[in-house]
């Protein structure tokens, strides 16, 4: 690998290369060969072992070894089993699953059929959020083509293996990405999780053994058979093999979708692939793992990214959202933003998540308004830890992460809000003041004319004045002043 090339496209191997609406182009790119070979040359047990050997771990967030998951479902005896593709991508800012379904739908179809063969299922279901109309359209086209070619349906490759796939639509609830909630939703029930065990592999959709994998996980499957488990395991680190797709966002130059081998450092991702921080600002933090992840700092930049390292650093892999923050971002506000999301998306089934997250949000809100106390910081930590310790599903078990990790890494900022009623990043509206710097003010009236609440007074060519009791801290005066005569403090 050459020095400056950090990405390898495995899951995204066809995205941006082939026409997603052409099965021929997919076949020309080795498509359906893995399925053909598995069906004709391997027993389900051998094929499952290949996945175990590859070391592939679930890309949806949990990082559970995919082959082991398949093996559990394979060993459960049942007259009917199901393969489910989780395409309920819900992390704000994450869109890798959508990109794969829009750019390479056949890879998911092929993988699901392989999965069906391995565990003994003849039916697959794709649970996809209805907000992804293009992905749904292309998936439908691909399903039709695969059926037309006999790659789905009965007696596939003349082996007697039958498999077909149906699409199920989600209404866009974040918690439905949790597999038990997803299954409840597919069955027509309220989309809320149930405790495990029983795991879906034992009792899933309609009470039958069900294997649920995420889109990106499936997209890796055909490659493993085409290139070999050993090849796949040679990419990445020992315990996290292969690559991971990340959606780079935030204050970074090259916002986009990237795919890097596991073990790549955050520094390489942010500063080399991502092209560094926008407008030459200083890097402050990177949030990984979506709303359930944590905020990592400068000191984590050289940590190789894999499932275990991220967990150890107080964050998580999640589905691969990566949001970069610079010196202008207030970490209390960031934590509050994510909490706002989880409060909105909690299903409300268990007490700690339903009420606890709401209280966590309220505490953050008090702090960001400068009304918090040191006692509130203690409460924040205790409550966060209890929510993690007692919540029913992964949503609640991780929702305090943004709070706890920012408290760990940016304690000074919390203290500044609480003890000095000050927001160091100048983001918390209730804690900032816009003031006229008298020696710079030329009395051009630009600020007064643009103030939406008319709280700036002053005659032309005279020093202006901001009435703090009326100011809504919109920042319009600061932006319009061409003489650097407005200060933010």
């Amino acid at each position, binding site marked *: *690998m050459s020095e*400056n*090339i*950090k*990405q*390898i*496209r*495995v899951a*995204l*191997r*066809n*995205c*941006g*290369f*082939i*026409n*997603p*609406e*052409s099965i*021929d*182009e997919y*076949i*020309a790119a*080795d498509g*359906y*060969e893995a399925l*053909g*070979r598995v*069906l*004709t040359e391997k027993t389900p047990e051998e094929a499952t072992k290949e996945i175990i050997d590859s070391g592939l771990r679930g890309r949806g967030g949990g990082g559970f070894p995919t082959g082991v998951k398949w093996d559990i479902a394979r060993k459960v005896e049942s007259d009917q089993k199901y393969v489910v593709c989780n395409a309920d991508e819900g992390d704000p800012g994450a*869109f890798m699953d*959508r*990109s*794969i379904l*829009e*750019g*390479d739908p056949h890879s998911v179809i092929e993988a699901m059929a392989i999965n069906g063969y391995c565990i003994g299922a003849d039916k697959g279901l794709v649970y996809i959020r209805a907000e*992804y109309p*293009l*992905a749904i359209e292309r998936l439908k086209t691909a399903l039709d083509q695969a059926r*037309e*070619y*006999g*790659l789905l349906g009965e007696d596939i*490759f*003349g082996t007697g293996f039958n498999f077909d796939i149906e699409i199920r639509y989600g209404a866009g609830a974040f918690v439905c990405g949790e597999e038990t909630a997803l299954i409840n939703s597919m069955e027509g029930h309220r989309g809320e999780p149930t405790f495990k065990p029983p795991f879906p592999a034992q009792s899933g959709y309609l009470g039958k053994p069900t294997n649920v994998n995420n889109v990106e996980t499936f997209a890796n499957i055909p*490659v493993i058979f085409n*290139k070999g488990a050993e090849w796949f395991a040679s*990419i990445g680190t020992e315990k996290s093999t292969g690559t991971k797709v990340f959606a780079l966002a935030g204050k970074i*130059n*090259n*916002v*986009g*979708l*990237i*795919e890097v081998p596991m073990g790549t450092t955050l520094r390489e991702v942010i500063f080399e*692939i991502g092209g560094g921080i926008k407008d030459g600002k200083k890097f402050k933090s990177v949030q990984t793992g979506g709303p359930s992840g944590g905020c990592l700092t400068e000191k984590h930049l050289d940590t190789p990214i894999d499932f275990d390292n991220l967990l150890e650093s107080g964050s998580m892999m999640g589905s691969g959202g990566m949001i970069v923050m610079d010196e202008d971002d207030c970490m209390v506000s960031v934590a509050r933003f994510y909490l706002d999301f989880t409060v909105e998306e909690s299903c409300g089934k268990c007490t700690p998540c339903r009420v606890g997250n709401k209280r966590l949000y309220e505490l953050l809100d008090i702090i960001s308004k400068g009304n918090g106390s040191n006692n509130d910081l203690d409460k924040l930590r205790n409550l966060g830890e209890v929510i993690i310790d007692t919540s029913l599903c992964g949503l609640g078990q991780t929702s305090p992460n943004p709070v706890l990790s920012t408290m760990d890494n940016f304690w000074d900022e919390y203290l500044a809000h609480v003890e000095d009623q000050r927001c160091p990043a100048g983001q918390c509206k209730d804690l900032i003041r816009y003031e006229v710097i008298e020696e710079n003010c030329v009395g051009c009236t630009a600020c007064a004319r643009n103030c939406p609440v008319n709280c700036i007074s002053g005659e032309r060519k005279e020093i202006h004045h901001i009435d703090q009791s009326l100011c809504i801290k919109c920042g319009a005066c600061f932006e319009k002043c061409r003489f650097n005569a407005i200060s933010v403090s």
Partner: protein
Amino acid sequence: MAKVKSLADLKKMKEKLQSDISLRENSKHPEGMVRVKVAMATCGIASGAKDVMEFFTVNLQKRNVDAIVTQTGCMGYCYAEPTVEVKLPGQEPVVYGFVDIKKADEIIEKYIKQGEPVDGIIPVNYETIDKK
């Protein structure tokens, strides 16, 4: 379309498809064609990729360039959408970012017709599975 009845069927089909593509795109033979791929995932379309694709389709034909214009998925360069990959016969493909109608026109006139380089190329920053 005949059904794929066996692995051998699939392999035969693949070889045929690959050689067609190769004949079309790689030979310097007069039959070689220019291939333009427009990234048409949700992100690209939201940035105007549909107009860009239509512009290429209509104008390449109008200007008598023997070309195939197809859509493809997301190339990953969200910051530079719409993105377009252009492959001249027998050459490595290049990817252009921030392609609007004006840029598309420049790409046709300068790069496709005359082989002159045009600004805005996004360098390849990944490896494919075949190279690895």
